[in-house]
């Protein structure tokens, strides 16, 4: 890995660690504490320059949010609601790539029920501590949190039914590795239900970087074609990328679905 790549990863880690710490140390540091947020605005983190309704906890239905610890909701820095798009079923094993404060893992755990299991993978120690505390508060017994990277997933092949991820893959400095690892851990017939920021095909990398930084989920976003090609190269089929709302000029929050074919090795 190049020095620049390592620096970028460290920048992302530090930024999200700060977000987790702010949620745990001060309720005021969070810009979208549930119950006080009547504007419907979400957030990208305590240090966010502007409060942005396109990211964060506002994208979850109130019924989902109300059943979760406030800290899990406050720490939601994502761009969608992947548990809603993954159509989870009882008994399934779910892996959340970049699980953050744990909101999607906890929601997934409820959906798959006691016979299923939800795993959260994150590289940020502070977020994992927050997620674990949130799981304890929610009384969730069928969840596990692991510290690792999404480019080297610490799970065996064919062990997961559904991979979800909320606005994290764009942060990766090695997206082909993420797609390959995701494909590897899925069972044949397994699927992904991912929310992520995706750029219009016409935007160059420079144009994406002009519209926002890497840690804001903008500069590292793939285009629709790059995303589709990346998933196909990893072996995914039935790839659907559906934009849901624009987060910056030419950049969209999108739902990404794909399947690991039954014939896949």
């Amino acid at each position: 890995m190049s020095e620049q790549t390592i620096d970028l990863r460290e920048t992302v880690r530090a930024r999200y660690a700060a977000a987790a710490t702010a949620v745990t140390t001060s309720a005021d540091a969070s810009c979208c504490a549930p119950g006080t947020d009547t504007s419907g605005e979400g957030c990208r983190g305590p240090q966010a320059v502007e409060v942005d309704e396109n990211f964060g906890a506002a994208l979850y239905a109130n019924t989902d949010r109300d059943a979760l610890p406030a800290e899990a909701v406050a720490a939601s820095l994502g761009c969608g609601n992947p548990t809603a798009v993954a159509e989870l079923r009882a008994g399934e094993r779910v892996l959340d790539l970049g699980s953050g404060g744990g909101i999607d893992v906890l929601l997934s755990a409820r959906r798959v029920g006691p016979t299923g299991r939800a795993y959260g993978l994150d590289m940020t120690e502070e977020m994992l501590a927050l997620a674990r505390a949130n799981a304890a508060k929610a009384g969730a017994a069928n969840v596990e949190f692991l510290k690792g990277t999404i480019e080297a997933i610490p799970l065996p092949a064919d062990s997961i039914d559904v991979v979800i991820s909320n606005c994290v893959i764009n942060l990766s400095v090695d997206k082909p590795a993420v797609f390959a690892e995701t494909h590897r851990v899925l069972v044949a017939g397994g699927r992904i239900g991912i929310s992520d920021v995706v750029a219009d095909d016409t935007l160059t990398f420079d144009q994406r970087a002009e519209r926002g930084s890497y840690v804001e989920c903008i500069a590292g976003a793939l285009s629709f074609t790059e995303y589709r090609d990346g998933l196909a190269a990893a072996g995914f089929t039935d790839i659907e990328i559906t934009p849901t709302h624009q987060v910056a000029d030419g950049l969209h929050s999108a739902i990404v679905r794909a399947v690991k074919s039954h014939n896949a090795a």
Partner: protein
Amino acid sequence: MAVTVDEQLLEILACPSPDHAPLARGSRDDPAADALTCTECGREFPVRDGIPVLLLDEATPPAEPGSATDGV
């Protein structure tokens, strides 16, 4: 104490290195250590606050074969 990782979790965990081999409880020298060791490559991964740290750059690399006896 190595009881913080439950059996069900240990069963599914795999080494993040390309071998993706199963992990065993404890370290090479101490089966009761709060760590997990790859059964293939021998890397040791710490378990902190019940969360397995399965990062290659935070793993203790395996001892070089024979390194303990070769040093003259």
